[in-house]
């Protein structure tokens, strides 16, 4: 599998493409460096379970450790609630992305703009187009995806990976963040 090609073969991006998160520390560094990160979680995460670890639990840990507010889309909320974690906001993916393009938007807490938006779990092509929207129209927001496939329109993305490699990376990111 090619590392840094669109997972959907035809969804070729233009000249500006995501840097690869080749090592988990890269993602950690970016998250640490961000003043106001936000995590947007789509329904796709509900499917993933590797070696007993459910992705959603990993993300909750990430959000807690990194103190990152979570926006849930679609029905993802139910699963978070079921785990006793109350997301910062429930909002469709296009709505939160649209707000991120507004440089005057003060965030879900009304305090300030976000400088890093971390996406995970949206359908591939929907995430592709939404990240494209942000690439072009949200110059102040860096974007990162935590999916196991390359998303060229993000600022940083994992390469196309096997579920195993990817789960290991995620675990490492979360572990590091705790440091």
């Amino acid at each position, binding site marked *: *599998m090619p590392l840094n090609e669109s*997972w*959907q*073969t*035809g969804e*070729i*991006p*233009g*000249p*500006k493409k995501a840097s690869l998160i080749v090592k988990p520390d890269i993602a950690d560094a970016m998250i640490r460096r961000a003043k106001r990160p936000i995590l947007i979680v*789509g*329904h796709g995460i509900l499917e993933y379970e590797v070696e007993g670890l459910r992705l959603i639990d990993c993300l909750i840990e990430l959000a807690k450790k990194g103190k990152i507010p979570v926006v849930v*889309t*679609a*029905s993802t*909320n*139910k699963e978070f*609630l079921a785990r006793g974690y109350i997301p910062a*906001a*429930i909002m*469709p*993916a*296009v*709505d939160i*992305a*649209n*707000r991120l*393009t*507004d440089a005057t938007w003060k965030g879900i807490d009304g305090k300030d703009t976000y400088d890093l938006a971390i996406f995970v779990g*949206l*359908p*591939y*092509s*929907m995430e592709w*187009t*939404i990240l*494209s*929207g942000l*690439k*072009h*129209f949200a*110059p102040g927001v860096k974007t990162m995806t935590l999916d196991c496939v390359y998303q060229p329109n993000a600022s940083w993305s994992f390469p196309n990976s096997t579920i195993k490699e990817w789960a290991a990376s995620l675990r490492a990111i979360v572990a590091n963040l705790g440091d």
Partner: protein
Amino acid sequence: MSRKGVSFRVKEINSDIAQFRDLSISIGAIHEEKWDEPMGPTPFPTLSTLRSWDHTLLKRYKPFYLPFCDLCCLCTYGKCDLTGTKRGACGISMSAQQSRTVLIAACIGAATHISHSRDLLTHVIEQYGSDFPLNIGGTSVEVEAPITRLVCGVKPETLGDLEPVLDYCENQVTQLLAVTHTGQEGNNLDFESKVFHAGMVDHVGMEVADIAQVSALGFPKADPESAMADLGLGTVDATKPVVLVIGHNVPPSTSIIDYLRDNGLLSEIEVTGICCTAMDIARYSAKAKIIGPISWQLRYIRSGVPDVIVIDEQCVRTDTLQEAAAIRTPLIATSDKNCLGLPDRTNDPIDAIVADFVSGKVAGALVLDMEKVGEIAVRVAQGIAPNRKKQGTLPSKDRIIELAKKCTQCMLCRRACPNDLPIPQAIKPAAGGNLGPLNELYDDCVGCGRCEPACGQKIPVHSLIVGAAEKQTREETFCIRTGRGAIQDVEIRKVGGPIVLGEIPGIVAFVGCANYPKGSREVAEMCMEFAKRRYIVCTSGCSAMSAGMYRDKDGKTAYEKYSGAFEAGGIVNVGSCVSNAHISGAAIKIASIFAKRPLRGNYEEIADYVHNRVGAVGVAWGAMSQKAAAIAAGFWRLGIPVVVGPHGTKYRRMLLGRADKDEDWYVYDARTGEKVYGGPVPEHLFFAAETKEEAMVMIAKLTMRPNDTSKGRANKLANYVDLHKRHIGGLPPDVHRLVRVPADIPLTMKSEILEHLQQHDWKEQPIPDPTLLPRMVHTRRD
């Protein structure tokens, strides 16, 4: 030298020059006088006539651009990289370029309906004459052409009256397409305004097509109890010769039915159809069987069942000739828009054509004479069926296992699949004999075939999936209420009150194509859910088929379970794609017939009424085509929100409101002229949902309107809150924005909502008499 020359056939022009002049006399505006409604301000609007209305909407519902490509490749200065703030060699910005791309799509869509409309109209005028009266539903439908009346300010009474309406449409499409030329419009919002214009013109074109065919071909006339037709692969009797029709323009297919009828063959031959031609042929004869939407083309042809394939135009897979050849089934092309490189046999004797087909001498031919097509198709099917033995190309179980063994798990098929289906993961067990996982993909597969050329091992991936689902396909035996056409004036009068009072929480229309993220079933489930909740549910085109392709736990399809009337809890299949005009037409008729707003050439006022008062929502869950883009645009200009599935983000932009910006939601109170807060309703104009669940919750929310009575708002809120609780979890976070006065709160949810309101510093807001048009202040006529 009359404009009629346009639609002439060559032979006619040759035969008699004088005819030109005769015809030019018949163009006249005879019926004009009979319509005593005074002309409104905007008949035959040009590109700029309704611009300020568009900008009013666009100020609230701003485009959120989702570039699907970072480049522009429209001229040889390019490709130009438009990333971020870069501009192209013509000076264009990314936002304008995205809207420009939407405009091209909307123009293609509108042109497609209008040109289809023109071909159909020319055909029925040739058959029945210009003076043939329009009859959409007898006396039940006095407002026969609400969109045409509204947009053009004319009241057509005969088929001939529809011609100048199409002239207008063609003129406007040409103007609009010109706007996309290099170095024309430079502003994204003005591009969007033109997209709306294209959409409006598209609805005129669709209306013309459907009222012409309903009138001339005797389709169900606004009949809530139109006949049921068979639906699904499993309904075909493959022991008979089988004709397959694909496309959108019904005349070649009616000619098949006519020939069968005239020759007493109706029960000897199966006439089956895919896409809108199927919908319309079933309106012509409920004996025709509907196989399914566009996504069924490959699987049905590969099954080997059809003995002859007749294609007309639109949404016909462009590899149909190759697929037909693979099962040794002849193909007849019948539209000059889709000639497939075939020899033109239009002027050859029928016997010769039939003989060539039956002997296998030719694999396909172009026949542009509709009357010939019927006889040819039937005789070819009869002649060829005994020898073909219905050999398809779908693999047997053993063959599937054998093919699956060749798989290298390279993932290329999955990476080519629009729905990212886990194909390699399903092929692996298949190689070991377990076809279950492959079969499971069947429901979610949109039948695009892209996985096949992607595979380096030449595994016919789609055929593997369909082959593995063989039992399931045999069980596809559903039914569908045939397209009824328009909504009766009397139905409008009946529901007008309940809609405004809120007994009916809204009108939800499921329209458009089958590019679903998770298969057809989701459409059926949504239809049933909203019908159960006593919304008025409308369906059309591919979505109307999908709505019928599922049985609930009682074993009933949506059409069996719910009535076909335009009433609370009805599921109203209006018909094919062009019948979508009856849905926008119904919204317009609510303003005109129920609320008595002047209709003629009075677009802005009617749109303002619909936007502020009629709780209609369009849902194009699998919208794929340029036509779907144009249809959506026609709804947008009326202020009717449209919800699409996740693939809809590829349409390049959403039109999203910002509920959090109070200043965006002010309306004029028509009684006082004051600007008052009307609430974030409807919140969006074009919205892509991630999942069915998110869509349903959003649909319920988008039926709200500033004009809702408290009873109405309470009913709408009850549905919204309930759906949110079930599918998203908890009370909706924005419920305080949607409650205006205490009486808006649904009784059963009182305490929890009150608590929420308190937490959010809720304040009571008066319910306005809302309008976005300053000129409507103090001038209300209802």
